[in-house]
């Protein structure tokens, strides 16, 4: 089975936020509450004229040792067959233990207001019918159909790549095995499946 992962190349990201928009439409995330599964940080550093500006997309790392899963009292957070860290909306208690545990700030609450708003926007096609703690699914529903996650598929700068980390011929496999792409905070021991090129 493929060990799916993502490589984010900071060299080409321009902070256009196509990823955030694509994800919001594909996964019906609550943009109306400024909650996103993926965002692009706009970091400004240094003094003029040596100022630097860096765009850093953030997303769930789909850790192999997910801290959020360990702390979940209802086992609503689990790893799918593909190794994606997912949430069962039916059994999630909304206790937010996972939010406290996640070192990457990848989760948010899909609250009552959000559920109501979603129903209003999407009608019978709404995807989130209950209050729960929400997170990125790596677009499992797309990946199992042979597609890339929505954010990867639309990225105009090809900054996001998705594929089998164990496949030495894949773009992501090459970037990771060569050491070009590195995880964020490997010291935490969560073994992220999202890597960055910077």
């Amino acid at each position, binding site marked *: 089975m493929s060990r799916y992962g993502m490589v984010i*190349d900071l*060299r*080409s990201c*321009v*902070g*256009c*936020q*196509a990823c*955030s*928009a*694509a994800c*919001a*439409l*594909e*996964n*019906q995330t609550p*943009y*109306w509450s*400024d909650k996103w599964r993926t*965002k692009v940080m*706009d970091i*400004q550093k*240094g*003094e*003029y*004229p040596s*100022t*630097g*500006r*860096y*765009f850093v997309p953030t997303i769930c790392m789909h850790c192999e040792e997910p801290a959020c899963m360990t702390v979940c009292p209802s*086992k609503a957070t*689990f790893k*799918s*067959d593909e190794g994606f860290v*997912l*949430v*069962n*909306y*039916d*059994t999630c208690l909304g206790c937010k233990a996972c939010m406290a545990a996640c070192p990457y700030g990848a989760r948010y609450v899909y609250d009552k207001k959000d559920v109501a708003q979603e129903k209003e926007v*999407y*009608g019978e*096609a709404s*995807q989130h019918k209950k209050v729960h703690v929400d997170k990125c*699914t790596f*677009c*499992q*529903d*797309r990946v199992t*159909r042979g*597609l890339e996650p*929505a954010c990867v*598929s*639309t*990225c*105009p*700068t*090809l*900054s996001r790549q998705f594929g089998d980390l164990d496949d030495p011929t894949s773009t992501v496999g090459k970037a990771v095995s060569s050491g070009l792409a590195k995880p964020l905070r490997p010291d935490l021991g969560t073994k992220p499946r999202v890597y960055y090129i910077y």
Partner: protein
Amino acid sequence: MSSLKERKVAARQTTSSRDVEWVPSICNFCSTVCNVRVGVKTIDGKKTAVKIEGNPNSPLNRGKTCARGQAGLRQTYDAQRLTIPLIRVSGSKRGEWNFRPASWEEAYGYVMSKLEEHQVRPWEMSMVGGWTSCVFYMPLALSFVFSTGIPNIVASPMQQCVAAGHFGNDLVTGNFNFHDEVLADFENAKYILLSMTNSGVAAASTSRLVRFAEAKKRGAKVVVLDPRLSETAAKADEWLPIKPGTDGAFFLALIHIMLRKDLYDEEFLIKHTNMPFLALENQGMVVPLMESDEQGFPTSFRVLDRISGEVRQLPGYSNTNAVDKEGKNLVPALEVPPGFTLDGHKVKTIFQYMLEQTAKFTPAWAEQETGLPAATIERIALEFGQTRPALVDPGWHGARYENILNTRRLQAVLQALVGGFDTPGGWLMSGEYHEKLLAFLKAKQEGKEVPVLSLPGLQFPLTAAGKFFNPAEWSHGHPSFAMAKSMADKAEGKPGVIFPAFSDYGLEEAVEGKLMFNGEPYRIKALLMNAANPVRHFYPDTRWKNILTHPNMGLVVAIDIVPSDTAAYADVILPNQNYIERDEPFLYGAGPATDLALTTRFSAVEPQPQTKGTADILFEFAIGFGALDKFMETISAFSGYDLAEIKEEVGKATNGEQTFTQAIRSVSFKHHARNLGLTPDQLEKTLREKGVLVVEAKEKLMEHAAICRQLPVPTPSGRIEIYSLLLAGFVRQEGYRINWDPGLVYMPPALNQEKKPDEFFFTYGKTPTVSYASTNSNNPILMALSKAKEDEFMGLWIHPQRASLLNIMTGDTVTVENCLSGQKVQINAFVTEMIRPDTVFMSSSFGTENPLLKYSSGVGTALNRLVPYQVEPIVSAFKTQEFTVRVTK
């Protein structure tokens, strides 16, 4: 407790794109015109658009689309959509949203009765078009005005962008396309230099961005000239925070060094440019030795052959200088020996004159102008001159300063020095452009006429706009009001505007009754606006509000999709189908894509029942004006479509069997299918399946249709004109003015350099989430993304050093006062190290006013409330940054 398997099944979150049917379309959220596909499925019993993706078959955007492209589908479901014709409630004032619903018949009838009531003669009307109108409805709009005798179109991309920028490049290359011009081949370039263009790359034009990203990944060196650290500048290896308006000085210093250190493509300059042409100095002007025919087209040039030492004659129109008029080979010399004379005249090459002209543009001089260190300028010149392929981006959006055309022209000259046209890593012409050029050259050889809309490059605007300028083209003898204003200016000894193509120059005077033509007032009494938002797109907002509310203005009609700021000033609003709903009346080329390709839109969801396509609205007006036959004839003449087919299909539309959009679409499919050797059904099927049909790949085109190497370009001489013959023509026609000097000159921006501590240079630019001055900001997702970056996107960028002096902190509301015009706006401050201390910056994307635009109304500050009416004298480009501002808390 359920089993693990059950839990997993229960957890499977579906996505919007599951089980959708994909319908090909073209994005309408900016003029990059990306190929997209719309995912539709039935929700609550109604076919609904749920997701947009880039079309993977697109040679343009390669399956990608930006935040606007993604979020665009929500426009279809905007609760404030215009869904029924509206007529202003009598007694209410323009600007108030006070309309009553009406039927289409009533709306058309109202328009006709108002035209009659105000006795509006054809030249007393003007169309006003936005870029949508320009890109998708040019054949209809042009045919409509010529068949109804309306000599006026004001088009919003011209004075802001196309005429006010690209035209500068085009003077050198002969190019000109609607909006997208050339595609810079970032992905094959090793050195990339960008100036005054955040919009064209990172903020965001997807077709360019996908190529720029490849360059970044490959490690090409990127240098960005920008007074602020824009998204594009953030990706630079070297950000050069140049003093606003002085980019031309930087380019001249590069040219100075490259010419002197032999850092140019010598073979290219000799063969494909006019650098080796012999010229002499006459009354201080450099004039090439040339002969011309009665129409002024060059018939011969002279060069010194390096091999034989003889002076030879070159053909007047050609791609190459390697063959003379008699068919003999030669190698023209770039320089003639000192003291060289011809027929008793001291003669030099254009190259030598350009060496002389650029002598003063040293790096030390450029340091004084630009504020960038001379050593840096010199190093960049050496790097640019020694790296191949080196690329200077042609730029997107112009305006800003009186020198904009000169600056954009200098960029093209720099590109010519490295010989980068239709070469890997250079400026690539579009597939459509190559096709038009081939057809034009063939027709020229056979002595045949080419339909106006098939004219390549500069030939199109010169011919099409030329018709608007020439009173003899119109039975009523009136040119466009813009040309009439220019003529009146000249009569008063003012410079006027030489080429006010699709410009608003003189409109306010015409409305006020102050514009005279042939001793009579030239009035404008009615406006027909299509997808135009001049209250936000033009400068300043007060000028257009005066135009629209003036008592002399008898009728304002607006065709639109959402209640724009301008629609509020209409008397009649005609609701338009949006891009996801409509079948287009035409097939189009794939924008600036280098493959020759065809594309169009397919209706993805049912249009709102009371909305209509633009083609239908224009046909109804043509019928109302009694000009249907002439309209059909003009469409045929301009597009080359078969007249009998037009009549047959339009006949079915007048009988109510189909819409006029369907009629023209059917003719368009037949026309293109015939050219491709397909049936219309086959063509339709292919496009419905793929969205884009590649007719000839770029590689094939480059084998036989590369400009310069194989084909002459649409400049007067067919060569890359480093010395501009078109500008030289302006000198003959108008007398000398530095704006149209055909050689290499510098025009400093007219800016107060001795500023007080609270006085700043002013700059503006684009954000990636909203298009320039656009109504597409009224989108819940784009607005959420924008608000999350409120400081960067909606704030006034100001450097901390100056901000602390003025006691200004991020989030403070400050007043910005235009020191030239006195216009004032309020805006929140964004204190940042990302901008020059002597400069402030704001975005051009926000500040809409119509309260019906629920998400965007009142959010941010509108650029055009701060910019006065100032235009330059070639194309009436807006001088949108040629002033300083005072910032107070």
